[in-house]
């Protein structure tokens, strides 16, 4: 066990997999000698050699296309897209190719690729370094979408993603790289040091895809969150005084529907939190599932707390970011109905 922040635990996952499996290789913009703009691939080229971890041209479509080709050959590429905001030039490759290759070829070809990409706000990154695009991937049949919320899960989920034979979009909450962030932006920045989820085994382990974590048990209301918002949810629960059960989904495809249903049947109420804008966001799908499967147990309408339906605005970072205050308001509202 070593105390690691999320950058270090992700780096450790990649290090372990490069060591274990010669078919694993990493490429992307600035990931080679430099080690990535967020340092996640730091020293991997120096340790494992140039051809295992190398720089790619600035072409997200090219990066994903070549990763698919390598995957089809039999390798397990782990391409990085520097910011999730930059993934869109590769969208056709992900949607029309990676997601469908197995299906359309009758199982002759498939793309076991893991696309790592930092996402989310809270860093004053403006419109093009802050977005949360998970819903658009969740909508695509054939792609898995994984979002860790702490260093331990990040490593185990990344290893499980790399070993998965389906294409995985692995979204890293960049605001959590160096410490847990609960949305209380006026407070001093925290590090992961001393956090129980920062104790990370040095070697190989996995956290299975499609298995949610009950972060806090409660009786009054079920709160669904993932990524950065798990920590914001905890703060909001604390502020509200509501005895909420908090579920960290960890992956939205595959989705741990059983854990969600079991909890909502127990509490009879549900609040969903995500940072991405609300309309057409993944909260809509969660809300529909809860309503379809728990209708007779529900005592109040499902609440959603999300980013506003605007681009991510630089000056209004904390007006946009759905912080603990909005979470607490939604929890109280869910309890009133």
């Amino acid at each position: 066990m070593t105390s690691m922040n999320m950058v270090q635990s992700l780096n450790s996952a990649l290090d372990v997999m490069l060591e274990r499996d010669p078919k694993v290789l990493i490429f992307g913009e600035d990931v080679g000698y430099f080690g990535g703009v967020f340092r996640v691939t730091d020293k991997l080229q120096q340790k494992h050699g140039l051809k295992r971890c190398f720089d790619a041209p600035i072409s997200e479509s090219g990066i994903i296309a070549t990763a698919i080709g390598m995957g089809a050959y039999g390798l397990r590429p782990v391409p990085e897209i520097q910011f999730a905001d930059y993934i869109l030039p590769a969208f056709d490759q992900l949607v029309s190719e990676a997601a469908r290759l197995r299906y359309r070829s009758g199982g002759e070809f498939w793309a076991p690729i893991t696309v790592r990409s930092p996402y989310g706000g809270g860093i004053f990154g403006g419109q093009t370094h802050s977005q949360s695009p998970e819903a658009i991937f969740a909508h695509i049949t054939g792609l898995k979408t994984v979002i860790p919320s702490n260093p331990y899960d990040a490593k185990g989920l990344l290893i499980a993603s790399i070993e998965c034979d389906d294409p995985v979009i692995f979204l890293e909450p960049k605001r959590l790289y160096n410490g847990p962030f609960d949305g209380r932006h006026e407070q001093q920045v925290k590090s992961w040091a001393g956090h129980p989820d920062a104790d990370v085994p040095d070697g190989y382990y996995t956290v299975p895809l499609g298995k949610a974590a009950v972060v806090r048990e409660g009786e009054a209301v079920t709160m669904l969150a993932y990524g950065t918002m798990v920590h914001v949810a905890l703060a909001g629960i604390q502020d509200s005084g509501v005895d909420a059960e908090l579920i960290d989904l960890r992956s939205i495809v595959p989705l741990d529907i059983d854990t969600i249903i079991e909890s909502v049947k127990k509490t009879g109420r549900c609040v969903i939190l995500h940072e991405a804008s609300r309309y057409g966001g993944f909260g809509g799908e969660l809300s529909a599932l809860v309503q379809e499967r728990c209708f007779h147990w529900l005592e109040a309408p499902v609440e959603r707390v999300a980013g506003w339906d605007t681009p991510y605005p630089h000056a209004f970072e904390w007006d946009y970011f759905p912080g603990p205050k909005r979470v607490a308001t939604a929890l109280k509202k869910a309890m009133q109905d």
Partner: protein
Amino acid sequence: MSNRAKLSFYVPEPRVRPGHQPSFEHFEIPPAGAVRRPEVGSSEHEIRDLPYTLIRVLDEEGRAVGAWDPKLPHETMIAGLRAMMLTRAFDDRLFRAHRQGKTSFYMKSTGEEAIGAAQSMVLEAEDMCFPTYRVLSWLMARGYPLSDLVNQIFSNARDPLQGRQLPILYSARDYGFYSLSGNVGSRFGHAVGWAMASAYSEDDKIALAYIGEGTTAEGDFHEALTFASVYHAPVILCVTNNQWAISSFAGIAGADETTFAAKAIAYGIPGLRVDGNDFLAVWAATEWAAERARTNRGATLIELFTYRSEGHSTSDDPTKYRPADEPAIWPLGDPVERLKQHLIAIGAWDEDRHAALAAELDKTVRGAVKEAEAIGTLGKSKPPVEQMFEGVFKEPDWRLIEQRGELEASS
């Protein structure tokens, strides 16, 4: 496997890394004045030598030599020098403002100031530039108000972009400067479309676009060239080759295999390769391409060969991936120093005037920063929060109206 030889996987690497002696001796740099200047009406297939050489006007002694000398009046060159020096003074001051916590982000264009300054002056007020984030000198040459730049950088109540955009991603329509975005390359095709629209409308405006050498890898670059070629669009497409894309050397964009100017050949449009630190060479090449565009001869691709002297942005430390002393040995010098040297050589300038101008510009920049600080730095002042919901659509829909109300109720 058969008994054929094994394949090997190739990944390019720069010649040196930190801790080693930097060198640019592998670059073939022809002497100033050596490259021919073809007639503007030349056909592309007659000028396929130009993408493989380097158009230079200013020699080592600061003389303007050869057929590409644009023979500019002294006051024009002094105006260009002023725009470049203003850019540098502004960059230095605002980079420091970031270090002092007054904003979230900044990017300098140090070493590349000749490009925006010269091209801004060659093009007409009604033409449109589709910039990258490193052509501040375009705006400086056109007298964009400095305090508005700083207000944008501070995202304060007077920010002309209403607090919506990351610092330095300006938009300045009245100055022929199209809206910037943080994603790279995606406006290259807009320039071609704008130029096609001008031709379609039988107008007389042309467009100019920039893209970094690293971003030539994006599909946007190749798509734009295809459309520019097919429709003979009146556009000047510029690749600013500053050798570094954050930590990736230009070889990761294919520079070890050919030149960026030579990409033009496959699309059948002229490609010029120009010393980007030579104000006069940039001017002359741009003038040549502009004349082609204005006379229905279509697009030109210009590679502006330069060097990013500083980090990519305030988030970058270039000493982690390139030798710290590499900027000092860039063989094509500093654009400000070279134009200054030329002006002194021809008797149009002197050290005293230069020092006086530098002091004046520094004072001007400090004044603009003070003015913006009085309104507020990042987080200390911002536009009214309802601005966040404006401009998503021409008119906000019910969602935005409801959400604005929800935010107001909660604050």
